[in-house]
């Protein structure tokens, strides 16, 4: 596009903040001393280098706990949300084996949860994968029906990474409480973006990650409730007994310091940021929905403020992205872009046909997204969709009133 008004715009534009976020410069600044002069091992009790590092970790733990209204002793630092998901699921499965072996989760969870559940099944666990409704939310009645005498854990994510849908967390935790079942949530996409309060939300275990909230990659945490009830997990990483034996391994001090700083910034700025981003997101969505046959995927009322997932019917996602991916970075639910060759299982779980799943784009706005970037994006995507539809046999058939389902496609 050669629009004059975008002359000063710096390209490419990053709109894939669900995949990862850039570090906030304030976070990097806080981390830097811990690589060089304050390099100590937080477990070194015998000298000042260790004490300084330990102090930094303690402070970060406070910053992290405060963001989610937890106690510092309830935070276990990990290498990220994947490890926290593994520790929560496997740790509960092992710890509560005498009580039961049944876990309830849902089909739109992140692979870090789904594949861990698959692993647990191999170890003799039973897992119920709840379907979701067409809007991506679980059915609470179905959840309650799935609970048996053997159920030990409900694992339902807070906000979905592909469509941004936010599950009814308080209703879920109430059901869990009522039946004496623990409730774990993967809140990787929600923490730091919307208010997450482990007390008010009734959460027993929660996984989250620094690099989704403007902190560094490779550090995250598992929240484990210590009161009402006291929750325990079996360690999955044995060794030096760090993190009260829950997670051995030398603490990633610079990472943890950055994580703490990122949490503090989010706590202070989240409300204003969410308001600003939801206005931009809505503008983006409104602009793109001016196209014919464009549809938002997932519930739009219960949704993270910075996420939109839209299908542009009759154009294929990877082909679409090629039209602008030199200038705009985002991701598609299309098979061709992901490593798996299957279109997004999350979109399919909503009941979308493969064709619509292939035609989807995911937009993840972030702290550094500007209105100018959104304006540019609307223009570039619209232009590409229109161009590709001119090239699409499916669009031509649709315009001629041919029902695409009436055609016998050659499947291979």
């Amino acid at each position, binding site marked *: 596009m050669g629009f004059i008004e975008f002359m000063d715009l710096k390209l490419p534009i990053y709109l894939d903040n669900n995949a990862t976020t850039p570090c906030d410069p304030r976070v990097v600044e806080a981390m830097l001393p811990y690589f060089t002069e304050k390099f100590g091992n937080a477990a070194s009790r015998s000298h000042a280098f260790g004490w300084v590092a330990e102090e930094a970790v303690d402070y970060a733990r406070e910053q992290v706990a405060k963001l989610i209204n937890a106690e510092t002793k309830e935070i276990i630092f990990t290498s990220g949300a994947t490890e926290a998901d593994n520790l929560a699921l496997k740790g509960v499965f092992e710890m509560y084996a005498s009580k039961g072996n049944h876990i309830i989760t849902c089909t739109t969870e992140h692979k870090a949860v789904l594949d861990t559940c698959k692993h647990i099944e191999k170890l003799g666990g039973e897992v119920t994968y709840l379907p979701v409704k067409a809007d991506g939310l679980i059915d609470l009645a179905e959840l309650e029906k799935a609970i048996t005498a053997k159920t030990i854990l409900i694992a339902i994510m807070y906000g979905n990474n592909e469509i941004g849908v936010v599950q009814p967390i308080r209703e879920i935790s109430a059901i869990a409480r009522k039946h004496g079942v623990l409730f774990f949530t993967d809140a990787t996409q929600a923490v730091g973006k919307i208010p997450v309060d482990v007390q008010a939300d009734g959460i027993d275990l929660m996984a989250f990650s620094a690099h989704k909230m403007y902190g560094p990659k490779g550090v995250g945490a598992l929240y484990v409730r210590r009161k009402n009830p006291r929750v325990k997990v079996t360690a999955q990483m044995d060794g030096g007994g760090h993190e009260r034996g829950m997670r051995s391994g030398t603490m990633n001090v610079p990472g943890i310091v950055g994580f703490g700083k990122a949490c503090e910034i989010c706590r202070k700025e989240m409300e204003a940021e969410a308001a600003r981003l939801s206005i931009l997101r809505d503008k983006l969505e409104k602009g793109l929905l001016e196209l014919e046959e464009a549809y938002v995927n997932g519930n739009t009322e219960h949704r993270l403020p910075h996420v939109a997932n839209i299908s542009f019917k009759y154009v294929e996602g990877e*082909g679409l992205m090629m039209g602008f991916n030199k200038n705009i970075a985002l991701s598609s639910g299309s098979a061709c872009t992901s490593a798996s060759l299957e279109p997004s299982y999350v979109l399919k779980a909503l009941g979308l046909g493969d064709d619509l799943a292939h035609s989807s784009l995911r937009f993840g706005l972030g702290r550094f997204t500007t209105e100018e970037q959104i304006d540019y994006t609307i223009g570039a995507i619209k232009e590409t969709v229109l161009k590709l539809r001119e090239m699409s046999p499916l669009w031509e058939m649709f315009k001629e009133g041919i029902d695409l389902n009436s055609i016998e496609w050659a499947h291979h």
Partner: protein
Amino acid sequence: MAYSEKVIDHYQHPKNVGTLDKAKKNVGTGLVGAPECGDVMRLQIEVDEESGIISDAKFKTFGCGSAIASSSLATEWLKGKTVDQALAIDNMDIVEELNLPPVKIHCSVLAEDAIKAAINDYRVKNGLAELELEEKKH
């Protein structure tokens, strides 16, 4: 994934996008692929009845950049060939010309299928026997 320059060029400046009148006896149409698989190609040829030479070719494709480029290239190659010469176009020629990576070879196979399907449609319309086509792996 990075695309080859040739794929990008066809994507940005596709050759012969369009529609021929499929009611005409000398027009053959091939429609291959499926929306669920993320690729649908429609390729059409118009044959000059006196010379037997393909005088025009058009395509429309729903798919990734490599699928668009494969069909665009196919239409370029088809024009000026006789129907028999067109049958000799092999998907590996397309792979080579466009530098397609292994994960995109299916796009070239689809383009070859589309050429053959268009030729068969033309043959059937003109009272010729349908050709048996070998199945290629997608």
